[in-house]
């Protein structure tokens, strides 16, 4: 079977740099990481210097994702030899047990770390991840809430909690988590847009109006966010067709929806330039927008 370097005509430095980029972007493209990383480790270990340890860690986690326990164990053993007392390596050992669904043993591992170092956030979060994997959503939510009382600035945790609430259909609490994230990241269009989606899902006129405002805000922060554009269109349309609104509110929302519709059509036409296939999408979108106009008036 051809090696990665043969197939893509790259040298070991490019492979190492690719792995670094994936680390920095926090990407979970585990199959690719395993492919590139395995070759790098087996053929070029001596050239990597101290980089090799972080690469072992990255490849090990990716290997767990791909059920490559053989590779994961190899990486783990090298790390253990080099860093025998490290909590960071112990956490990786715990993750391997999680991947093998040996949750009791994994929990013991993390408890041992926490005995030694009660402020170890990684171990606490892994324990919550185990609850999630076991389907114990209520406990996971409770533990995560407790964690956040102590570590109120942990954005990854707030986001995880919002997802857990969404899956439990507790949209009110999910919205609260997203509000925390928006406060600390006012320029992040993704949080605005997700908040708007949660408000939309909650339903009701007030939430729909909030939803429209936050879709609009997301668009102001990033005018290429298609979800925000569609969301603005849908929320404005819903408000305009509600029997409870005044004539002025109805008129305003028809205007917003019409503006969004034009932008959507424009975006599709731009995307469709030159390709035959996307003509289906352009037509479908036009039809969708037309049919909704009918229901609105």
């Amino acid at each position: 079977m051809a090696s990665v370097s043969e197939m893509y005509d790259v040298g070991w430095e490019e492979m190492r740099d690719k792995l670094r980029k994936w680390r920095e972007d926090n990407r979970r493209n585990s199959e690719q990481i395993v492919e590139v990383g395995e070759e790098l480790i087996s053929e070029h270990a001596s050239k990597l210097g101290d980089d090799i340890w972080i690469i072992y860690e990255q490849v090990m986690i990716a290997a767990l994702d791909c059920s490559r326990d053989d590779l994961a164990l190899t990486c783990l053993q090298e790390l253990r030899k080099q860093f025998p007392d490290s909590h960071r390596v112990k956490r990786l050992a715990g993750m391997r047990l999680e991947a093998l669904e040996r949750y009791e043993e994994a929990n013991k591992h993390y408890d041992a770390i926490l005995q030694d170092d009660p402020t170890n956030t990684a171990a606490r979060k892994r324990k919550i991840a185990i609850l999630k994997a076991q389907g114990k959503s209520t406990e996971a939510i409770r533990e995560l809430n407790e964690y956040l009382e102590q570590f109120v600035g942990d954005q990854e945790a707030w986001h995880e909690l919002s997802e857990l609430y969404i899956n439990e259909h507790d949209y009110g609490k999910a919205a609260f988590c997203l509000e925390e994230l928006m406060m600390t990241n006012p320029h992040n269009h993704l949080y605005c847009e997700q908040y708007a989606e949660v408000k939309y899902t909650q339903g009701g006129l007030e939430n729909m109006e909030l939803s429209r405002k936050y879709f609009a805000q997301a668009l102001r922060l990033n005018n290429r966010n298609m979800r925000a554009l569609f969301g603005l269109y849908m929320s404005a349309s819903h408000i305009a067709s509600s029997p409870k609104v005044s004539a002025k509110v109805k008129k305003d929302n028809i205007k917003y929806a019409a503006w969004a519709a034009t932008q959507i059509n424009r975006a599709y036409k731009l995307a469709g330039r030159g390709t035959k296939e996307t003509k289906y999408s352009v037509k479908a979108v036009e039809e969708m927008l037309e049919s909704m106009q009918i229901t609105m008036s």
Partner: protein
Amino acid sequence: MPIQLTSQAYCKMLLHAAKYPNCAVNGLLVAEKTKDRKKDSEPVLCVDCLPLFHGTLALAPMLEVALTLVTPCLRSLSHLSCRPNQVAEKVAARISENFSDAAIVMIDNSRLTMSCFEPIVIIYDHHENKWKSRDVTLDSFEDWSEAQKITSALLEGRSYENLIDFDNHLDDLRNDWTNPMINKSVLDLC
């Protein structure tokens, strides 16, 4: 209401699940519009699968957009890859509003293998306000051995890397969520 899956429908469902092993995924199965079915016992043939989302499945707006885009031309059912939970039931209910029947087809992840030696879907029908699972036999497929062969080949060839769902489409409108290239691969293997 019995349903039958074509190789293309089954294959794309599995490719979607394989592409996002760490997320829940959902999508729509589409059947051809039939003018009239002679008997209720004649199976409805699901000819294609439109993968929708991966990750957070429980939010309404994008789902409404997808359903509205698809509704005018097709008669559809739905599929999801975890236990039929509230989301699945809500989607199916929404589909039922526009079409007479909806069913949920689910993939049993734990049985997903490269060789696809057995069908790994579970079909749920709506009876008296509850979703009941039904036995899946080889009759649930238009041609099981063909479906098995094609799905296995595409999984091994990692075609799922090129599968586009509605989420990918929203990230970049040029991504075509009807997946013409994969449809062509399926046809080529038939």
